């Protein structure tokens, strides 16, 4: 339905094909979080890899920082309708985390867990093969606290609530288990190109 009198602010044409349906471009980096911003000192930070309820490996900050580093520059898309192009990240890919634990993924599903109790589910297929990382740097600087510092998950091809801030663990699960927002009406998978914003999309 055309809205009477609305023309909008169309974006540059060569960029528009990088913007999924219903999204608009921003230059700034909005912050959206469901609660207070946790304060985690790197000295207190740990990352736990679990299979079901069982922890299989725990890294502290310096151990985690010694893992191989990968850089990614990606477009990101938030479900609240903003997209930001060419964001530059550096961190440790999920592949390298699994390799350091000496294992291959035991199940096709995972939940990321966070310091503030947040969680989000991401299928293994979207985490492995260089598609996702635990990001430690943003634009060449340590990740700011309000953007998830010291570490956040980065799954850039899904809506950005999947890129969980203040991440402290990854848990492989037998089934695809809904996380925090997925239990609160948001889509179980969250592909921006298919506009999977809410549960029935």
């Amino acid at each position, binding site marked *: *339905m*055309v*809205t*009477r*009198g*609305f*023309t*909008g*602010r*169309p974006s540059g044409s060569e960029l528009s094909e990088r913007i999924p*349906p*219903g*999204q*608009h471009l921003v230059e*700034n980096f*909005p*912050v*959206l*979080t*469901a*609660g*207070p*911003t*946790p304060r985690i000192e790197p000295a207190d930070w740990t990352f736990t890899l679990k299979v079901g309820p069982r922890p299989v490996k725990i890294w502290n900050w310096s151990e985690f920082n010694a893992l191989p580093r990968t850089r990614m520059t990606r477009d990101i898309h*938030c479900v*609240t*309708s*903003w997209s930001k192009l060419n964001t530059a990240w550096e961190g440790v890919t999920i592949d390298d985390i699994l390799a350091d634990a000496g294992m291959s993924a035991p199940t096709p599903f995972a939940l990321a867990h966070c310091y*503030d*109790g947040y969680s989000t589910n991401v299928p293994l297929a979207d985490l492995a093969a260089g598609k996702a990382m635990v990001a430690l740097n943003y634009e060449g600087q340590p990740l700011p606290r*309000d953007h998830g510092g010291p570490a956040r998950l980065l799954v850039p091809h899904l809506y950005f609530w999947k890129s969980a801030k203040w991440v402290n663990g990854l848990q492989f699960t037998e089934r695809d288990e809904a996380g*925090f*927002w997925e*239990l*609160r*009406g948001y889509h179980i998978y969250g592909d921006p190109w298919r506009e999977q*914003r*809410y*549960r*029935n*999309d």
Partner: protein
Amino acid sequence: MSATTSGWQSCAIVEIASRTPAIKSFFLRLTEPFDYKAGQHVDVRLTGPDGYTATRSYSIASAPSGSDLIELAIERLADGEVSPFFHDVAQVGDMIELRGPLGGHFLWPGRTENPVLLIGAGSGVVPLMAMIRYRQASAEPVPVALLLSSRTSFDVLFRDELLELERSLPDFALALALTREPATRRTDFSRRIDPPMVADVAARLPAAPRSVLVCGSNPFVEAATDAALALGVEAGAIKTERYGI
């Protein structure tokens, strides 16, 4: 849970009311009425003649009541795409596409006697207003305090209604924080939000707040949540809605 959306619906604007110099209320008649909870929002979608669309979220200001009218209160951002359309172009009778209710987290805690502290800035009071209106209509015995930051007293969204509620609703405390004008009421403040201010307003509740809801810009939400944490409120009892700016 009713947070699952149905599809888009086209709704008529039935009334437009100027609330402050920068904020107008838009009353929309739902063609497919839905139940919602105080604190939820809708997504609004505008479509240009070429099919270009712009989608934004707006909190519902009205209290759930079974009515098919909802109120949105939209602040005009100078270079924005959607909010200036509402302020400068939209008229009564226009059809607007929306869907909802959305959001299953930033919700009125309700059905307890635990005190609730609401903290908002500017148009961030919108979902909090839905909660206060719901609290009044439902007569749930929940003590509520609202700390609302605005530039001047003219910028206080829903000012007259809030002042009236403060007089008529037992267990409701109102504190305004005016950042660009001296406050005239002794219960208000003339500065930006800070921890002593949040402590002062929390102390107007009969007991320590068991639930804190904060809505506004990101820097405001950061300041307010830090203050609530300093007061000893558990992180898990603090919910925030950030308008993304």
